[in-house]
């Protein structure tokens, strides 16, 4: 519907690139978390109860999906924040500040 040539030129906020990246990491983490939970929970939990195995007294399906899953994805969250998330100013930027920020990001890369 739109015609890009007619659009007024403006500088896109340079911080958004990293913001968009972080959203993708979180979405991937969430989906992996769900798959882990589902796989262990229903993979082993659907067996007849007589065939259940136990770890620390808990049925293995529950131990792996809920206990190990909770700890594992907490650790994964820490990893995501420390390795993949980046600090940035949140306040409104002027064009000069935006250019300076962009330079800093490129220098750090």
């Amino acid at each position, binding site marked *: 519907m739109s015609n890009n040539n007619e659009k007024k030129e*403006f500088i896109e906020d340079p911080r958004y690139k990293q913001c968009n990246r972080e959203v993708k990491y*979180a979405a991937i983490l969430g989906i992996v978390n769900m798959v882990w939970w589902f796989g262990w929970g229903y993979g082993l939990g659907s067996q007849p109860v007589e065939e259940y195995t136990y770890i620390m007294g*808990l049925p293995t399906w529950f131990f792996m999906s809920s206990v190990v899953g909770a*700890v594992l*994805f907490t650790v994964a969250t820490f990893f995501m*924040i420390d390795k993949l998330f980046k600090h940035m100013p949140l306040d409104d930027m002027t064009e000069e500040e935006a250019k300076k920020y962009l330079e800093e990001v490129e220098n750090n890369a």
Partner: protein
Amino acid sequence: MLNTSVLVALIIYFIGVFVVGFYAMKFVSKARKTEEAAKSEEGFLGEFLTSGRDLGGFVLAMTMVATYLSAGSFIGGPGAAYTFGLGWVFLAMTQMPTGYFTLSVLGKKFAIVARKIKAVTINDFIRRRYESKPLVIITSISIIVFFIAAMGAQWIGAARLLQGSIGLPYETALAIFAITVIIYTTIGGFRAVTLTDTLQGVIMTLGTILLFFVGLKAGGGLTNIIQDMKAMDPRMITPFGGDPGFMTMAWVASFWILVGFAIVGLPSVAVRAMSYKDTKSLHRGIKYGTIVSMILLILMHGVGAFGSLIVPDIASGDLVIPTLTVELFPGWVAGLILAGPLAAVMSTVDSQLLIVVGAIVNDLYANYINPEAKKDSKKMSRVSFLATIAVGVVIFIVAYNPPDLMVWLNLYANAGLISTFLWPIILGLYWKKANKEGAFASMIVGIGTYVAFSYVWPRPLGMHTIALPLFLALVAFVVVSNVTKDPSDEIIEAFWGV
């Protein structure tokens, strides 16, 4: 009969909450003085509704967790685990991503945009992004109606809790609870709410840990508890729960959508993502929030499941936590632990109360009814205080005649709010083509199909009622936005430009 030692512990806790309220009041009074407020462009409402965006990491995490973990997680949730066994603890773990997902998805971009457009409520965001008066009126009304329903259910839970543990009459318990929440929210605004949330989050966490380990011991250790549950009913230790045909795979898995991912669309949760100070606070908030929600979810629901052995034959699953606590602990310790679920309720409803006030005062009154008032901080503060008290009184009346099993009521209101806000927030933030026609279509389709399905097709494709309507709402949003006009260049530049 009045249980005095529990009462004393709870009174100490209530005093703590009031102290925090009065501390926060100093900031609110400062913001009310016109000359001070004139310096900040957001004025009085900036302080009252977002505490001037200065949340630190720990407070952010605690207020986030305490806000979305409600009475559902502390009374209804353990109650269901009592009835259905380990399967419900497994189901509760679908809330695990809320600790990291919500803050990461709204993330830094939401905070940056909120600062660009000076938004202090979610509706400010909707109003600036879509520039449509009918849309903002609909979202405001949706907030007012759904949150009052949700709060009614929560207040009932709180009053029941006080009734069960202290022995106060229901009406007195409700009145004490209502007066406390209304007072500290009115005088202290968002700052009081987040600080009491932090106090409440700490109490909940400590109480939950204590209750879990004592419960574990009372049940004779994990191995014993699980084997006893198996002997009672083998289905109690499967992911399918006690009743055949209720906790089906598709239904339980769809809770990932309802309580895991879609929480992003709850205004009371989302507003926190525009109120933190800097990225350091955000990073810490995500870490602490994930740890705390993990501990609370697994231990609190675990205790509920243990309860089926330690205190069998209680009248309603909802009573499992209060009953267990009184059974296992001496009076004053029981009082402190019971402050936990009470704190969970309080920390949820105070935020919801403030969101409703924000919708009335900021989104409807200051934008459309009396636009001049926004510049007058004294007037805004008077209107906000009156609105807070008025809304509180309405909820009190709603909660006065209580229905049973509040977890379902609570889920119904949440689903309505999520259908209204999820896509307009996420697509508005990340998709340039998202426009007002699309937002309208998604709300109408989302709420419409949700209400229709809950009557005629409660489990579409085997899933929880909310899952399919959310998907249909997304489709409607994308299709309609694509065939109608793009948002104006001004909107795009305000949101995406520097």
